[in-house]
C-alpha cells in the first residue's frame, strides 16, 4: 500500500485549482516518478492525488517565433528529448533531458515535475536557468509567471504553496547563433544522479550565462560571475579564469553520500572549462 488516498483527474485547470483549494493534503501527480517513490518510502503522505495529465493547457508543447517555447506541466522528458527544433535552438535543455534517469523513467517524468521536486541536482534546472525560463503558476486567483531563478528556495523546496499548481514553463526565443551546452558528472555512465551539473550558454552578443546544479542547496544561476565577463571575448584565458573563479560560488554539502565537497569543487572547475571550450569550439565551426 502506498498510502490511503483517492484519485482525481480533472479535465480543466479551473477544476484542478478548485480541488486544491477545497482539499488540503493533496499531492499533484504528473509523471509520478518522484511522487510514487516518496509514497512507497513513506516520505510523502497524502489524502488525495490530483492527476493533472488530463488538463489541456498542461499538455501544450508549442513554439512560436519571437516568443519561444511553452512546455506544459504534463509534457514528458522524452517528448522534450525528441523535439528537433528545441534541440537545435536550446541544446542544453535537450542534453539535460537526455541525461535524466533511464529511458523508461523519461517516458513518464516531466520537466515541470523535475523542477517542482526541486532536487539540487535536478537535470532540467540548470539548462532552464540559463535560458531565463519562467514558471507559470495557477491558483484560483489566476495565473502568474515567476522567474525560475526565484522559484527554488531550498533542498526540495520551492515558492509553491499547496493551493498552487504549475501550468508550464516558458522559454524566451533565441537568436540565430545562440549556443549552449549541459554537462554533468555522475558516478557511473548510465542512469545515475549527478554530482555536479553545469549549463553554459553564449548568445550572439557574446553574453555568457552560467548555471550550476548539485553543488548547493538549490540549482543556481551565477549572475555575479556572468557580470564580470560582460563585454569580454570568450578566449582560452578567460575560460581558465572562469574555471577557477566558479569554485568560489559553490557550496557543496559535506554529508552527501555521493561525493565529498573537495571532489565537487574540483569537478566544477573541470566541467566549467570543458563546457566553455566546447562553446568556443562551435564558434569556429
Amino acid at each position, binding site marked *: 500500500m*502506498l498510502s490511503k*488516498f483517492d*484519485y482525481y*483527474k480533472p479535465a480543466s485547470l479551473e477544476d484542478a485549482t478548485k480541488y486544491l483549494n477545497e482539499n488540503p493534503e493533496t499531492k499533484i501527480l504528473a509523471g509520478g516518478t518522484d511522487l510514487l517513490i516518496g509514497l512507497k518510502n513513506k516520505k510523502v503522505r497524502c489524502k488525495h492525488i490530483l492527476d493533472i495529465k488530463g488538463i489541456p493547457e498542461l499538455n501544450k508543447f508549442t513554439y512560436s517565433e519571437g516568443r519561444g517555447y511553452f512546455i506544459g506541466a504534463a509534457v514528458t522528458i522524452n517528448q522534450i528529448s525528441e523535439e528537433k527544433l528545441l534541440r537545435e535552438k536550446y541544446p542544453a535543455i535537450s542534453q539535460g533531458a537526455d541525461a535524466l*534517469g533511464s529511458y523508461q*523513467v523519461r517516458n513518464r517524468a516531466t520537466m515541470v515535475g523535475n523542477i517542482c521536486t526541486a532536487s539540487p541536482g535536478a537535470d532540467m534546472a540548470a539548462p532552464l536557468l540559463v535560458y531565463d525560463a519562467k514558471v507559470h503558476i495557477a491558483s484560483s486567483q489566476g495565473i502568474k509567471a515567476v522567474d525560475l531563478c526565484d522559484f527554488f528556495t531550498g533542498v526540495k523546496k520551492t515558492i509553491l504553496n499547496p493551493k498552487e499548481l504549475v501550468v508550464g514553463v516558458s522559454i524566451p526565443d533565441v537568436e540565430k547563433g545562440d549556443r549552449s551546452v549541459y554537462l554533468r558528472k555522475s558516478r557511473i555512465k548510465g542512469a545515475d544522479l549527478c554530482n555536479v551539473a553545469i549549463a553554459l550558454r553564449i548568445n550572439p552578443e557574446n553574453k555568457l550565462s552560467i548555471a550550476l546544479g548539485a553543488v548547493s542547496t538549490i540549482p543556481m544561476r551565477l549572475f555575479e560571475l556572468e557580470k564580470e565577463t560582460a563585454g569580454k571575448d570568450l578566449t582560452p584565458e578567460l575560460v581558465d579564469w572562469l574555471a577557477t573563479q566558479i569554485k568560489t560560488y559553490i557550496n557543496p554539502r559535506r554529508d552527501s553520500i555521493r561525493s565529498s565537497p573537495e571532489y565537487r569543487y574540483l569537478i566544477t572547475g573541470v566541467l566549467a572549462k570543458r563546457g566553455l571550450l566546447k562553446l568556443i569550439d562551435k564558434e569556429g565551426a
Partner: protein
Amino acid sequence: MCEHDAKANCFEYIDSQMPRVPLDLVVNGERVHEMIDPAMTLLDFLRVTLKLFGTKEGCREGECGACTLIMNGRPVTSCLILAVEAQGAEILTVEGLSKDGELSILQEEFIREDGLQCGFCTPGMLMSARALLDRNPNPTADEVKEAIAGNLCRCTGYKSIIDAILSAAKREREALRNG
C-alpha cells in the same frame, strides 16, 4: 517501522481499503475491466489482480527495470505508475510477446545468446528491447545500451543481452524483407 525490517520492505500488496474505482484498459490485446484500489500500482494490478506474474517486482522505485512493460507504445516502469493512470491504455507485457505458444524472435535470441541466467531481469529487458526495436529496427550497440540503461542484471554481465538484442534486430529485419 524500521527501515531495514525485511518484512516491512518485502513487497506484499496491502489493500488501502479506499473505495474502488473503475479501470478499463487493454492488456496484451484483451479488454480488461476491473474495480480497483486507487492506491495500487500498475505493477500490483498485473500481478495481484490479473495474476500475470511475468512482469517482475524488483526495487519498486524505478531503479531496476524488472517491472518494465510497454504502455501506449512506450516502455515504462510499472512500479511508478498508479493502475488508475492506465485508464484506457494499451499495455503489452512479456506474456504478450509470444504468439500461439511460439516464442518471438527476440525471445529466441535471448535463449540462443545466453541472454539470461536467473531470468529475473529478463521480462523487463525484453520489454525495453521490444520497444527499442519498434522505434529503431536497426540500433547500434550504444543505442541498445542506452535503451537498457534502466534495466539491471545481476547475472549476465550484459554482453550476452546486448548481443541477443542486436541479433534479434538483424533477424527481424531479415524476416521483414522476406515478407
